[in-house]
């Protein structure tokens, strides 16, 4: 594999869902690259397309949605041209996934041991015994106390935080080069949330895996991400290094988001500056920039033409006419 090639690159990927109200473009011409070992956070509010984008990487777009265009190249292979069997060989093996709901993403009628051992059986062709041994080691790694005796437990016997640890163990089983974590801690309490994220970050660093972190929490992004992509209305509107994005946000939407979050370190009594209006309806996106109806700097051009992602500084791009 070419050293200069990124681990994963999405080029011009669009995903659409036919609905009663017409075709909904959940992801719209998104291009994105992830380098080996880095943590890229994709932030956006509900309906921004961040989760669907993540699912498209694994060929898991729910029916009747489909990928209309673009290419997804992972380790030199275009995932979109592979057959189902080849995608399955990558999923859970080279790419691991952690979902939001630890309650519903584990099978309630299978023991924890069986579920954690599954990737070893499937992708490594291990015997039952070998796989269970590996599963025990893995559970110890994600700090589950007394892992050997917990193999026979069922998911309902675990707390939310423990279940999410099990999910992480399963995702990391085959030492994937890329881990996709979709809101991995949203359903958890804050003290547990920070434990889980710290664990995830440590383990990915240890294995030199890249982490694609999908979240709506700007604090989590600041603590864990190297690079950030901001999504709005199915498109990426800004990408930058995490430090750069928070220090010099360029897109009006990013600025608005940062101004609307109450922070632990600001002056109390200050008013929040919310973004006016409502998030866009993906079935009826405005003609030009999707953010134009809510943008404080809107011009006539914004309502007609769609801005493309342009470089505003090194490693920093923004899709806004105000910065051309």
């Amino acid at each position, binding site marked *: 594999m070419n050293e200069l090639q990124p681990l994963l690159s999405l080029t011009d990927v669009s995903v659409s869902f036919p609905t009663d109200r017409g075709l909904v473009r959940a992801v719209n011409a998104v291009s994105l690259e992830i380098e080996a070992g880095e943590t890229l956070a994709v932030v956006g*509010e509900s309906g921004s397309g961040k989760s669907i984008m993540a699912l498209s990487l694994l060929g898991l777009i729910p029916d009747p949605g489909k990928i209309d265009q673009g290419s997804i190249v992972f380790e030199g292979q275009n995932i979109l041209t592979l057959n189902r069997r080849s995608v399955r060989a990558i999923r859970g093996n080279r790419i691991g996934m952690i979902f939001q709901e630890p309650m519903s993403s584990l099978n309630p009628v299978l023991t924890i041991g069986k579920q954690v051992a599954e990737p070893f059986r499937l992708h490594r062709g291990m015997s039952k015994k070998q796989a269970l041994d590996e599963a025990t080691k893995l559970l110890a790694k994600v700090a589950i106390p007394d892992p050997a005796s917990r193999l026979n437990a069922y998911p309902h016997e675990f707390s939310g935080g423990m279940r999410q640890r099990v999910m992480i163990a399963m995702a990391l089983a085959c030492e994937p080069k890329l881990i996709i974590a979709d809101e991995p801690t949203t359903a958890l309490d804050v*003290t547990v949330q920070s434990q889980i994220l710290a664990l995830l970050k440590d383990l990915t660093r240890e294995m030199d895996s890249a982490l694609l972190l999908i979240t*709506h929490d700007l604090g989590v992004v*600041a603590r864990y991400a190297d690079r950030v992509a901001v999504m709005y209305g199915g498109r990426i509107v800004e990408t930058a290094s995490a430090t750069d994005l*928070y220090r010099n946000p360029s897109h009006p939407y990013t600025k608005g988001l940062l101004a*609307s979050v109450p922070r632990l370190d600001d002056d109390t009594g200050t008013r929040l500056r*919310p973004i006016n209006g*409502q998030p866009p309806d993906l079935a009826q996106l405005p003609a030009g920039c999707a953010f134009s109806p809510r943008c404080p700097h809107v011009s006539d051009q914004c309502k007609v033409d769609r801005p493309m992602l342009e470089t505003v500084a090194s490693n920093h791009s923004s899709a806004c006419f105000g910065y051309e």
Partner: protein
Amino acid sequence: MMTPESDVLLRVENLAIHFPVTKGVVFPKQVGAIRAVDGVSFELNRGETFGLVGESGCGKSTTAMAVLRMLQVTAGHIIFEGEDITDYDQKKLRPIRRQMQMVYQDPFGSLNPRMKVRDIIGEPLVVHRLAGTRLEYRNRVEELMDLVGLLPDMADRYPHEFSGGQRQRIGIARALALEPSLIICDEAVSALDVSIQAQVLNLFSDLQEKLGLTYLFIAHDLSVVRHICDRIAVMYLGKIAEVADSQELFRDPKHPYTEALMAAIPVPDPSIEAERSQQLIVGEVPSPQNTPSGCRFHTRCPKIRDECSKIEPQLQSAEDGRIVACHLHNPI
């Protein structure tokens, strides 16, 4: 530091709510109790915003439900406007309930999908026979919609035609219909996206200024609570760990649990995050059916001492006047 009685809108004294755990279907036998709230006391002054924070299972919502008398109180007293309402029956509660209203967390589940917005907002008026003539009713509903930033010509629409933030505004308008003095917000902004959450938080502040409302604000998000509240009580496993002025609490948290909670919340700024201590507490909240002995936090506390597992610390004033339940600050 006693506040004159007339300034206190709500006083909760030693409130306890226990839910029985039963075994057997035909002849159920009580085998234990979940001590959801176990001896909680606090006061709400007129016109202030008082926050209850804590992780799931700490009893913050149960406390709110008890204040509204929607739950059987096991022990303790709820005193509203100087009246002890703990043992009031439904008939006597009716006029009290006009004074306290609730805004719920889920903007989707808390509005009846088959009712028009006009009737959702106006329902409390009908229930309490305050609707008046048809014209008066319509005018009042439109006035309320205007107050919360909804266009009055949306009154004939159904809830599904509104976004999450707008629905939360409908819920707020409904809570305001009876001109209550106390509004209980149970995770009222948790389900909203950040840009919308900010709009609703600002609306709460504006309404307080305009109508002189008192809020009991329940949330798990410390940054939101810090933003909107004047005073905050931190709860852990059915007990209050610490009560303080919002600024003070964040500047100088006393209870180790408060410290841990704050350390767990990331600040949206990478340069600050890089310098913050990332010391995290271990473990998860124990089951309220089987609470730890002594201080309930001792199983996870990084500053544990010998006495912590034996003697339960009481919520009391420490030397510097701060109110905290911890042996570190109130040595025995």
